[in-house]
């Protein structure tokens, strides 16, 4: 039987939006992810923003450290905080700043701001992933971060799993 020839279309895998969610709870999330990772991600997203068809939506990230509640900001430039609350500081906590540095006010939630020098004091609760507190041992970052000791080796080359340093092609999540 002469049938109609059908072609199965092979779409390419593509991303249509990338959203950084660090702004949802900046102190908690930037501590969790690591200040260096947040910084490098910001650069990657800026670059990807120019790549069609990828649409990069990063409302928090592009605010360069502005607290989303403090007012509008320059989308790609400097922080334009509108209030006297320093960038990244929580509005509901006392403002004890030196310059533009947010100071930890609570031993429950450390206010380390990835865009500013970390000012954890001794009462900052020591999280294993907090790179700010020198008393905390960094457990989870790879050798990409020079402050961290490499914990894991790459299956193919015996080196770090970091793509940057060892070129290991074994993709993993």
């Amino acid at each position, binding site marked *: 039987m002469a049938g109609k020839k059908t072609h199965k279309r092979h779409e390419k895998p593509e991303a249509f939006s990338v959203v950084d969610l660090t702004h*949802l709870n900046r102190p908690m999330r930037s501590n969790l992810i690591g200040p260096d990772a947040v910084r490098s991600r910001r650069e990657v997203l800026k670059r990807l923003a120019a790549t069609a068809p990828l649409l990069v939506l990063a409302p928090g990230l592009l605010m360069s450290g502005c607290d989303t509640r403090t007012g509008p900001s320059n989308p790609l430039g400097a922080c334009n905080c509108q209030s006297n609350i320093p960038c990244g500081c929580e509005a509901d906590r006392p403002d004890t700043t030196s310059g533009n540095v947010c100071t930890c006010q609570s031993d429950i939630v450390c206010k380390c701001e990835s865009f500013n020098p970390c000012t954890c004091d001794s009462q900052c609760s020591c999280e294993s992933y907090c790179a700010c507190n020198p008393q905390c041992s960094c457990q989870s970052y790879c050798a990409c971060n020079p402050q961290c000791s490499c914990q894991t080796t790459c299956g193919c080359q015996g080196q770090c799993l970091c793509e940057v340093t060892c070129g290991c092609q074994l*993709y993993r999540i």
Partner: protein
Amino acid sequence: MIERTGRSGAASHIAYFPLKSIAVGVNRQAAEVIGNLKRRPGHVPARGGLKFLNMLTELGLVNGPPDPPMARPLPLAPRPTRTLLLLSERCPLACVYCYGASSTRGARMPWPVARAAIDLIVRNAQAQKRTQVELGFHGGGEPTTHWSVLTRSVTYARRLCKSAGLRLSTSLCTNGIFSIIKAQWLARNIDGITVSFDGPPQIQNAQRPTAAGHASFALAARTLKEFDRLGKNYGFRVTATESIQDRIGEVYDYATTRFKPRQFCIEPLFVCGRCATTLCRPPAAESFVKGVTRIMDTAVSRGVEIQYSGGRLFHLGTTFCGASRDNFFVTLQGLVTSCIEVSKEADPRSNVFIYGRYQPDSRLFSFNTARYRRLIKLHVDALESCRDCFARWHCAGDCLAKAPDMRALTRRRNEYRCEINKAITLHQLEHEMKPSGSRRKAYGRKKNA
């Protein structure tokens, strides 16, 4: 990986990486690439996938640092620096859904129990070099019905904290049924006040009648007006039942236009306590989600935080609340429980949550350390049923006390709440993926319970 219902083609899925705080809207083919990679590390897509993979790699989603450890170690013996005192079984109201099934008669906390709890948290705070202790008051019944111990506790704690150089933070959950004089004292002396209030008169009076069966709206409204006059920071706690499941928007509009709360917390009814006799039922999950997401969408302009305990995209953690951390809640009998909803030894859940008691002879608290250690291990990593859920770190296993079976705490969750939690969290995530940006304020920020 979350499939977006009703969408096909571009961005039909969300690849969500909660611990890396990134969400990527992808097409089906990209979703398959990520799924394959998760199942089989090293898998490389055949057709046009390398560019996509490189993008993920650059973002640290592939070959990035391993996810950080989430569980935060707690001391192996309780060392609380905050307490919640369940002062009284008495209540002037007879709410149709009251979990405490309180009445106008009932026991109240003896002063020595309250004092011992305050002494303990201050002592611990000093030993741990903390800067603050927290003192809260909650039900069973209505805490303001034990006015003398409430006020004495605040005064006593303030004096101790002053001499120890500590800051005192105070909170209260109340029905708002008391005199203007008391309202003024509370406004001056309690930092955070949550008023259980169900909105329009018809609903408030039906769901929260007085013990004598009369309307309570005018009494509660008088207090709220006084708080507003004084500029007091307070929030509402609304219980959604089946009978108001389609009126959530109306409740929200009424409560936030007539009064000036800073937070609006809404929870679906959990059947317990007086529900056995009133036959009060929870809202349908779908209706609750519809109502809550709708008010979340409109809340930004009104400036009132919307809170629902299981829908909190802003939060990443391993526990739903302090019930599986270090909550030190003291009942009026002097029992120590980590869960506000489990305050009596007769409760079948007591062998999970009650982990200590006040000893009148020594005037100290003794703890069942083994039970406490079991409690603090009940974080989301231990919950098999949450393992593959995208909302795992947000609702963090949900309310342990509402699990369907205490003997299977790690294996079975409350499916009704799971459905709601996932739907609301996804709604929040999808909103963040719109170019209009964040509305963190609308979603609020739940403090540790």
